[in-house]
């Protein structure tokens, strides 16, 4: 079902953690709330679940205003970072709990638990207790418990962050597949940009309780709305060069390069992603510099270059062979340069 947040504010005492959040999640959409710790993303999710009251604003699930409705009447299911499995109940009882609370007939509960357990490959583990399961299995019990009710919306609070890297990648794919199959609206909180990029239909990037950009992963990556978004998304992060733009040239401390067809600006930041840059022979390329460090990452090499007073990271081939201190040139195409206004941080071209 559709989930709508209208002008949500939330304060804890004097601290305002969510400031005027407006969100509209479409039916069946997978929306990721992305942000660093303290950005208000978890608080926002907990307000949708009803675990936290709102200071002002409205929350709608479907067409129903649930702002002042208890969690149990909101018809949402939540997966916690800790999984929150009931340790004194078997896997079966854990998954069946939402149905048992609703006093569904016993046969119906059995059938549905068996069905859901098969979907998440837990059917052989139903008699075990959570403490006898591995991390990935516990994660799947938590998912099954959320799925069994067919809720109006799934709320997920960093559900993969307790898994090791390999399992996380696997569960990420499983989760995406499952959400696609069930077609249930999902709001997913994470600080991990890879999860956000891979899972989401749309990403809302939060910082200090304010949405910085709400768009598809591709748009957020290719056209960041401001300096914060540009710096947050991408690993290694975008290179920022501070300077000014006049007569088709961008000048920074210790150098300048041609940048055509952009409006002049006396204080601007030019952003280039490391993968859009390349290292060239000295004298060639857009701007001159020298190699500062070289880090071989396996399938590619990260080269940090000094450009006048600034530094740039270039994502180079794994066969990169230059050494620290060598003079080089750095090249990148005009169209790959993102231009931001220094004062406001907003994108200007």
């Amino acid at each position: 079902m559709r989930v709508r947040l209208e002008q949500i504010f939330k304060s804890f005492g004097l601290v305002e953690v969510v400031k005027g959040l407006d969100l509209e999640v479409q039916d069946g959409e997978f929306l990721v709330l992305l942000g660093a710790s303290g950005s208000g993303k978890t608080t926002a999710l907990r307000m949708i679940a009803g675990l936290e009251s709102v200071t002002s604003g409205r929350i709608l699930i479907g067409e129903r205003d649930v702002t002042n409705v208890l969690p149990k009447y909101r018809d949402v299911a939540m997966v916690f970072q800790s999984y929150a499995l009931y340790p004194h109940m078997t896997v079966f009882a854990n998954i069946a709990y939402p149905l048992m609370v609703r006093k569904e007939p016993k046969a119906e509960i059995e059938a549905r638990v068996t069905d859901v357990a098969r979907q998440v490959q837990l059917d052989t583990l139903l008699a075990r207790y959570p403490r006898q399961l591995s991390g990935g299995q516990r994660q799947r019990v938590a998912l099954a418990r959320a799925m069994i009710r067919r809720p109006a919306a799934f709320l997920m609070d960093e559900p993969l962050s307790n898994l090791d890297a390999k399992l996380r990648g696997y569960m990420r794919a499983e989760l995406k597949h499952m959400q696609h199959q069930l077609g249930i609206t999902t709001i997913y909180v994470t600080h991990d940009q890879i999860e956000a990029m891979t899972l989401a239909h749309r990403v809302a990037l939060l910082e200090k309780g304010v949405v910085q950009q709400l768009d598809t992963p591709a748009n957020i990556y290719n056209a960041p709305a401001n300096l914060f978004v540009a710096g947050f998304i991408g690993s290694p992060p975008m290179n920022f060069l501070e300077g000014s733009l006049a007569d088709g040239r961008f000048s920074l401390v210790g150098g300048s390069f041609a940048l055509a067809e952009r409006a002049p600006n006396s204080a601007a930041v030019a952003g280039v992603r490391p993968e859009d840059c390349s290292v060239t022979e000295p004298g060639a390329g857009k701007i001159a510099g020298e190699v500062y460090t070289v880090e071989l990452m396996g399938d590619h090499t990260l080269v940090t270059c000094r450009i006048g007073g600034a530094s740039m990271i270039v994502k180079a081939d794994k066969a990169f062979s230059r050494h620290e201190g060598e003079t080089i040139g750095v090249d990148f195409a005009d169209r790959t340069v993102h231009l931001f206004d220094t004062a406001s941080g907003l994108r200007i071209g």
Partner: protein
Amino acid sequence: MTQTADRRGLAQRLFEPDRLESLAVVPKVGTYVVLGFWTLVVLFPLYWVLVTSFKIEVQVDSGPYFLPFVDFTPSLDAWNFMLFKNNTMGAYLNSIIVALSSTLLALLIGSLASYALVRIRFQVKLAAVVTFIALLIAVIIAVAALGVPWAAATAVAIALFLLSLGTFVRRFNAAVGNNDIEFWMISNRIMPPIVAVLPIYVMFQHLGLLDTQVALISTYTGVNLPIVVWLTRDFFAGIPLDLEESAEIDGASKFRVFFTIALPLVRSGLAATFMLVLILTWNEFLLALFLTNARAQTMPVLVAAQNTTRGPQWWYMSVLIVIMIAPVIVIAGFLQKHIARGLLVGAVKG
């Protein structure tokens, strides 16, 4: 093993352990000597009571005799008298009923209270509390000293209290929080019980409930509530909030969360609390002495009653003590595994 021969000096070998997790010779011997001595201190009185229960008056007076069949010929006289001729079983039954029901009641009410204190934030206006107490005192003075009918006085006081809530109480911001409520509860236990015995006696006298099990059960429940609240609050506070929030999203009411999630998770803590409160009520003497007479008499009072004008009847007393100790040992044995078990394993990431 010749290559790893111990090259340490004698003193080192005596005082330093071979491995970190073991004890050296001297500390080991010292530890067991102290433990052995303490075991003797604990066990000997029990043995003595058991042995004495099989003696007759002469054997006690001319003693001490330590070993049955060697020092003296054991007799079942005291057991015979206490179990069949005296009304011991009545007192025994009273003790069991009173101890069990008051412990269970205190545990139920107390754990509900401590759960609420842990999970719900209370903010009672201090002005409301003060007004309530002031009106209570006023009612007592009006009824006792001025002869106002109690129904009229109470009605007026309730009306005034409700009126004050909407008016002047609102002007004050100072509030009583959860910590204050908890301290108030434990402060009830700080006061020596002897202070409260007479008012409680008078109260039950007026209610016509003296010498009844109801009087003992309700008094013991009230007296032990603070202990239950204070012991169980930390157990409840230790439950990860995620579990309860998850249950609430899953559709459970607060009571359901309490009974299906919180309570089972603090089972070990509850078992320990149950044991402690049970022993406290089982052994309680002072209140039982005042509130009971014959019908509702409990075991501690009966034991004390064996100190007669002819001097203490040690053999009878010993019989009573033996049958008093037995059930507590059995229950402790049953609950032991619960008390020692960590149940929260596997609740959250691990």
